[in-house]
């Protein structure tokens, strides 16, 4: 018994910071859960199902593999559209950021496009592409495209001339400037845009799935809604939030390891 307590306290004090952070982050969830339970006791079950019915729904959906199927479907859809958006938006953004002519020609279009949310395009997209993987990809592409493009443009435009001068005076040719100065300098902004684009894409996808799809977490929620199984609706919502959190977390870790040189420039 002694050894256990000593070992436990050793672990806690060793990774003290990380565990502390984790515990702090857990508190609101616990409070939420308790509050939920309390309120669900007073309200009708169809308005707010109690946590245990939702947990039931989870275990059922996990055992039948239903939850996994829909989650995988959503993630596959978003991967395609998102990567496509990066492929187009980043180079285009660099081009617009660097060339005045491209900027003059394309900027008005860009500014208009950014205000049209994916959801507004769904009727048109369904008409042209039907429903299914292609339509979903287009919707997700549109959601992610604008934020990535705009952040890339601003990142490239914001590259300080001193860095360019440094490179030139050390012998950089034009081809070097893009890869060795412009892109690394603009990378923090591009990352911000990528993260934003991911969250927009995720939301656009859920909306698209809710309206016109046979699989996916958005479909799951709509299906549960029509069958009036509110506990499955909540299950879907929690899953969506959780997956979103995972995606964002892994993104941030990747970002932090690639951009560790920024630490000095950010106030903690």
């Amino acid at each position, binding site marked *: 018994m002694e050894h256990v307590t000593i070992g436990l306290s050793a672990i806690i004090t060793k990774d003290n910071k990380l565990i502390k952070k984790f515990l702090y982050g857990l508190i609101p969830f616990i409070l939420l859960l308790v509050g939920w339970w309390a309120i669900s006791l007073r309200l009708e079950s169809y308005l707010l199902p109690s946590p245990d019915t939702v947990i039931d729904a989870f275990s059922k959906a996990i055992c039948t593999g239903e939850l996994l199927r829909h989650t995988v479907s959503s993630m596959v859809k978003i991967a395609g559209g998102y990567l496509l958006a990066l492929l187009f938006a980043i180079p285009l953004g660099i081009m617009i950021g660097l060339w005045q002519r491209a900027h003059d020609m394309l900027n008005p279009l860009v500014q208009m496009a950014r205000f049209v949310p994916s959801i507004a395009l769904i009727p048109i997209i369904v008409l042209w592409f039907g429903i299914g993987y292609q339509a979903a990809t287009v919707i997700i592409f549109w959601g992610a495209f604008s934020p990535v493009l705009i952040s890339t443009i601003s990142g490239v435009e914001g590259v300080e001339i*001193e860095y360019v001068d440094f490179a030139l*005076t*050390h012998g950089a040719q034009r081809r070097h400037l893009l890869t060795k100065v412009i892109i690394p300098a603009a*990378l923090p902004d591009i990352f911000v845009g990528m993260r934003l684009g991911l969250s927009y894409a995720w939301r656009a996808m859920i909306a698209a799935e809710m309206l016109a799809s046979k699989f996916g977490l958005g479909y799951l929620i709509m299906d549960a809604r029509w069958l009036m199984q509110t506990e499955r609706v909540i299950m879907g919502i929690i899953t969506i939030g959780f997956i979103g959190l995972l995606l964002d977390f892994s993104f941030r870790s990747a970002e932090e390891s690639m951009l560790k*040189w*920024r630490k000095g420039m950010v106030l903690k």
Partner: protein
Amino acid sequence: MKPKLELRDITKMFASDNERRLIALNDISLSINESDVVVIIGPSGCGKTTLLKIIAGLENSYKGEVILEGKSVKAPGPDRCMVSQMATLLPWRTVIQNVEFSKELLGIPKADRKKESLEYLKLVGLEQFAFSYPFELSGGMRQRAALAAALMSDPEIILLDEPFGALDAQTRKDMQEELLRLLQRTKKTALLVTHSIEEAIWLSDRIVIITARPGRVKEVVQVNLPHPRNRTSSEFIEIRKVISEMIEEEVKLTKRNHV
């Protein structure tokens, strides 16, 4: 002997907002020999940094010629490597990656670069920080790293724009000594811009005094004192007085023009 660097009638004009043409530099001509250490000094706004940038090739709309080793040059390059006022380093690269940048651009393989860059880092006393990022270094350390990078690019002439302006008095002194040591060791030709008359006299073989805008060469002062120089010696103080008075003159002119 052919001069290392020659400036012929350098004239720089800025088109200002209200159509009035601003003449920053007017017919600057200068000659610098190999291994010379020349300092440019003058009142604020007289165009010293602009001149340096023109020589470095970072400014390219001007009249006149910049001639390096008998050949006219315009584009920027490591042959006229410039250390900026703010000791700029690329923040996403480690110190050693910054120092060997010029060689990396030339395609020299990593192993060869590493040996050389570590040597230059040793030269400036930063070998412990080779793999640190610029944000981890103090101002003085960054300045030293920038110097090492410039030296490694093996320039024909090294250009320095107020390299020690942001440092405190003691660090500044140390850095001046360091720079002189490096220049003497590598026998590099150097062109420095500074505000500090004391620094100018302590470091240079020649001091070029630029007038207030539009900048012309007012005077060239030879400094024939042997190294290491004594900042309190009577000759030092005499030269200082002379230069100080000349600059005062120019400063007064600037004030009058603004009134």
